[in-house]
Each structure stands twice: as structure tokens, then as C-alpha cells.
């Protein structure tokens, strides 16, 4: 009888430990490794066109997806958090693929053709009265070598 109780207790302890370990791993699950992930290749002009001509389809295909966006660098600067900010031309005046970099950006030069991999969070709001176009945002960006 004592042996049976011991067995049950052992099973409970093992299950508790497994449950705790599982909970710990889920809670501390790392973010997606963008640098190592395979991104869907898309040209900046096509990506912007997709969001401005058929936003429903663009949302389904691109939002929260890892994309590898290629195009010409319009400018590179730093945001308020000191992260590199790369704007890729879209063919539309004043509208860009707006990439906030997580990886190094020292090799990125204005006017160069680049491919940047990151997660697409959608198209931002513009202001038609002011002629401010909405950008398509890419977060956690990495330069594809």
C-alpha cells in the first residue's frame, strides 16, 4: 500500500515538474529569429502597390509575415530610440517601405539597392490634406547580405 502511494506521489511530482518546465518554456518562448528566418521575397514597389490597390489581399498575404523587401534606399537615419531607420523607395512620391532595423545597418548607403528582411506590420495612416502618404512598415529589420 505504501509502495502504491509512493508511486502515485512520484507520478504527481513528475507531472508537476513537467508542467512547470513546460510553462516556463512557453512563458520564455523567444521571439522569432528574423535573421535566420526565410522571408517572402517582394519588391518594394510591388509591396506598396499591393497595399494601396487591394489592401484586403495585401493584409492577408503580408501582415505579420517575414518579408524580404528589395529596393533602392532613399535615406537612412536614426529614430528616437537610436535604432537605424531605412526608407526604401516605392515609386510613389513621399511613400516608403519604412524599416526599423534590429540588425546592423552600417553597410546600408543611400541610393544603394538592398534587401531588408523584417516583419510587416501594415500600412500607416497618411494625411491627404497635407500630402503625407502612409508608409508600409517593416519592423525588426535585418540587411540581407
Amino acid at each position: 500500500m505504501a509502495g502504491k502511494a509512493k508511486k502515485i506521489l512520484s507520478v504527481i511530482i513528475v507531472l508537476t515538474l513537467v508542467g512547470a518546465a513546460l510553462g516556463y518554456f512557453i512563458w520564455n518562448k523567444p521571439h522569432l529569429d528574423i535573421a535566420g528566418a526565410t522571408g517572402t521575397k517582394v519588391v518594394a514597389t510591388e509591396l506598396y502597390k499591393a497595399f494601396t490597390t487591394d489592401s484586403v489581399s495585401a493584409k492577408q498575404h503580408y501582415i505579420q509575415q517575414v518579408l524580404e523587401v528589395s529596393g533602392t534606399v532613399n535615406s537612412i537615419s536614426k529614430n528616437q530610440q537610436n535604432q537605424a531607420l531605412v526608407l526604401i523607395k516605392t515609386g510613389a512620391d513621399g511613400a516608403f517601405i519604412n524599416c526599423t532595423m534590429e540588425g546592423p545597418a552600417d553597410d546600408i548607403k543611400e541610393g544603394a539597392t538592398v534587401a531588408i528582411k523584417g516583419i510587416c506590420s501594415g500600412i500607416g495612416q497618411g494625411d491627404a490634406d497635407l500630402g503625407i502618404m502612409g508608409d508600409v512598415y517593416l519592423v525588426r529589420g535585418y540587411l540581407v547580405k
Partner: protein
Amino acid sequence: MKRILLSVWMLISAVNTVSAQKYYTKNGNVSFFSKTNMENIKADNNQVMSVLNPQTGELQFSLLVKSFHFPKALMEEHFNENYLESDKFPKSTFKGTINDISKVNFASDGTYPVTVSGELTIHGVTNTATTKGNIIIKGGKITGTAIFIVALADYKVAIPKLVENNISKTIEITVNCLYDQKM
């Protein structure tokens, strides 16, 4: 006579240019902060679009909820899927006015305390919001800051029982936007 007309025209043009000046950014910062005894949670969004009209004090900002980045992947998942439902409500916006914009001297460096009021939309729910902030002028650059204290229940954001001790019922939303000039 021609000279006088030219001078008047130049003066009118200059006045119109100043009055038409607006400031904007597409990469302002909004952070979210929840503090409880169990844990503190902070997330940042550096893809905030904001427009400020220094003449009228009109101020607006708009952000994509999916651009918030959390330290933990699971927090980010829950934030998007369960709490803010970002597929259903992809944007959060504020549209309002800096009530005491006349106190700000945009030509002189300094920190100018202001009051902002307007309509804040989160999770598809719009409420009137008023808060204090600062307009900071430094070397010709304009930065706007403000903190909104938001009760999640006011925006119909439901927190599951299992994690209700981990997430504060009221959160701090800090806006920090460095503006570029747009004529």
C-alpha cells in the same frame, strides 16, 4: 509703386508660409507600461504617425497595434490576439488639440507645459481624453510628449482571470514624437 506691391506680395507670402507650416513624423514613439506587484510590462512602438499644427494646436497621431514590440514573444501574442485584437482593430488613434498652444514660442528654445484634449481610440472604442504634456523646442526641432493614463475597462479590453494579477487595470501610454517640418 511696383516696389510697394512686390513688398506687400512678399509679406503676404511670408505670412501664408508661416501659417501653413505643420510638423509631422512617421516614426514617433508610443510606449505602453503596465505595473503590478507580479511584474512590469513595457512595449514600444516606433512607427507612430503624428501631425502637429502649431497655429491651431491641432494634434493627431495614429499607430498600427501590430508594431508594438514586447520583451517576451508570448506577451506580444496575447496583446495582439487576446487583448487588443489587432486583426479586428488594427489602428489606435488620437485626434485632438493642444488647448494652450499660444503659450508655446516655437521660435525660442524651452520646455513648454501644455494641456492636450481630444478623442482617443483604442480597441475600436473612442473616449474623450485630457492630459498634460510638454512641447520641447531645441535648436529648431520640436518634440511633443504626453502621458495618458488609460483604464483598460474603458476601452473594453478584457484581461483573463488567469493573468489578471500580472496586468494593471490602468496603463500608462507615453507619447514622444520628434517632428519634421512639412510646409
